[in-house]
């Protein structure tokens, strides 16, 4: 009897997960349509769909397909890979306060990109940019996990992350400081705020291959995250190659975050927030959280990018600023919730 009850509970949980996924897909599609319709020229969803498939006026087609579509694609892809990276890092470290932005990955990626620009090695549309961003993102996450070691305590992770992002920030400031050209400095400063404005299909081509590769790598490791629920030693005894897993996660996060930062600048706190929004709906299984977190990340960034277009202000608000303004109070809330673990020093 109770056995059957339990079976039914499992079925209900599975059905609930499917409906949450369906709802997320619908939400992302609606937000994408919104993203294509909202701007200086407002277009109705019908006009947007029409223009998307080559119908309607030429003006509508240009606006939807050439101006707004790359922006919507980037918002989707970058939001998704940030959400996915957050969920993967939380799974790897069994820690709800893990996220690329807390570990200094975007900041380090930004430093890599800024360095390449300032040294005159590349203009902002060359592949050297994402490659440099990925290399520095990889280095930052690698160093962080090396410092943290096995079964890292929460406090060590947060402090090491703070140190790495501060270092990356200081290094970026140094590059700007030493730069001779004030226009370059201004451009870098604005780019660092994080934006998806005026992005073209060239930017999409620049970022998407890396983001897709990162996402594939992270998703391929999903079942190992579930085994890690029992700790590293037990996961290893179940046949998980921990060292390889760490390397794969670092590579996946670096590719995703580096690719994203190269075209959008730093957009923070999506990776931290998305998995948390999904846990009450999907459950705590770190493997099952990956795809919903990616969809939630995509929805968050699409929404934020619509938000910056409709919030009335004297100059444009950058989407990276908006996500941080919303994300940091959420981070504070999480710290309060995890107070006991933080106070104890061990997660």
């Amino acid at each position, binding site marked *: 009897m*109770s*056995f059957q*009850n*339990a079976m039914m*509970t*499992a079925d209900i*949980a*599975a059905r609930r997960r499917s409906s949450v996924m369906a709802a997320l897909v619908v939400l992302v599609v609606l937000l994408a349509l919104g993203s294509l319709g909202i701007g200086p020229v407002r277009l109705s969803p019908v006009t947007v769909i029409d223009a998307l498939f080559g119908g309607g006026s030429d003006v509508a087609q240009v606006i939807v397909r050439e101006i707004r579509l790359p922006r919507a694609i980037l918002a989707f892809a970058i939001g998704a890979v940030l959400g996915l990276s957050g969920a993967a890092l939380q799974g790897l470290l*069994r*820690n709800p306060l893990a996220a690329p932005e807390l570990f200094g990955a975007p900041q380090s990626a930004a430093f890599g990109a800024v360095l390449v620009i300032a040294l005159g090695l590349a203009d902002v549309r060359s592949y050297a940019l994402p490659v440099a961003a990925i290399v520095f993102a990889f280095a930052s996450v690698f160093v962080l996990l090396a410092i943290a070691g096995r079964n890292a305590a929460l406090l060590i992770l947060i402090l090491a992350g703070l140190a790495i992002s501060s270092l990356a920030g200081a290094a970026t400031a140094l590059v700007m400081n030493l730069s001779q050209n004030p226009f370059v400095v201004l451009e870098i400063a604005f780019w660092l705020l994080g934006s998806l404005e005026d992005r073209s299909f060239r930017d999409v081509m620049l970022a998407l291959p890396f983001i897709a590769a990162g996402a594939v790598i992270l998703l391929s490791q999903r*079942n190992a995250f*579930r*085994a*890690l*629920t*029992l*700790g590293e*030693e*037990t996961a*290893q*005894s*179940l*046949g*998980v*190659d921990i060292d390889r897993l760490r390397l794969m996660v670092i590579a996946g996060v670096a590719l995703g975050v580096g690719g994203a930062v190269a075209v959008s600048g730093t957009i923070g706190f999506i990776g931290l927030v998305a998995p948390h929004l999904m846990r009450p709906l999907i*459950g*705590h*299984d*770190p*493997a099952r959280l990956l795809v919903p977190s990616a969809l939630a990340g995509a929805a968050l960034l699409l929404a934020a990018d619509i938000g910056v277009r409709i919030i009335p202000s004297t100059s444009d608000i950058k989407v990276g600023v908006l996500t941080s303004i919303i994300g940091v109070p959420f981070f504070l809330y999480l710290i309060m919730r995890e107070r006991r673990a933080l106070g104890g020093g061990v997660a």
Partner: protein
Amino acid sequence: MTAFLTAQGVSVKLAGRLVLRDVSLALSPGHLVALVGPNGAGKTTLLRALAGLVPATGAIHVGGDALSSLSLPERARRFAYLPQGHLVHWPLPARDIVALGRYPHGATDPARLTPRDAEAVLRAMRATDVVELRARRVTELSGGERSRVALARVFAVEAPVILADEPTSSLDPRHQIEVMKTLRAAADQGTLVIVVTHDLVLAARFADIVLVLSDGRLVSQGAPAEALSEQVMGDVFRISAFRAEYKREAVIVPWAEI
């Protein structure tokens, strides 16, 4: 009976310190082996070395194969490892935790178990009496329930060797006996069960063989009453013990420090 698990001259160095020195042993299937010794004697390290979880010198063979020649999943199918503390980082349902025991067999998603894996999970849950807990989150279970779920996960591997590190610590006496009886039953069905414990009373009562480690060396082994002789109790544990027999089982109760 031929040995299933053998170690020859196994040494382990951790952080520059020799934690295990030249340990050799040969263990047969169907035995419950208690691994005892003072704190820091190297019990957990020996267990980890046997499972291939720490780098060790010397030779370990399991079922006729050198441990070093086996892939990680092959090792995982031969050794079911239960660490101290029954750590669970996320509040998953008990059934999903138990199903992780099938991970070495390729069943990495508890929602998609083959009938064979599902049967193994159910068998393990019946053996440890946790079927009724299957939908409950492990973090909401009592200590005793949690230890049974952890044990079920280990049983679900259906490995020929079970390595359990202090499975009875922090349990009340009733649950301690329950856990030892469950492990005893697994040994009686042909599994080689190795249990690290500080509880000499339980070791003497339930084990077929007791291995005594002291300062990284295997200093005594054999049936409980012999392995835990008065001399060993004095030399290794530096205690005297009350010794008796109750219902034909050895009783060794630590009594006073010497």
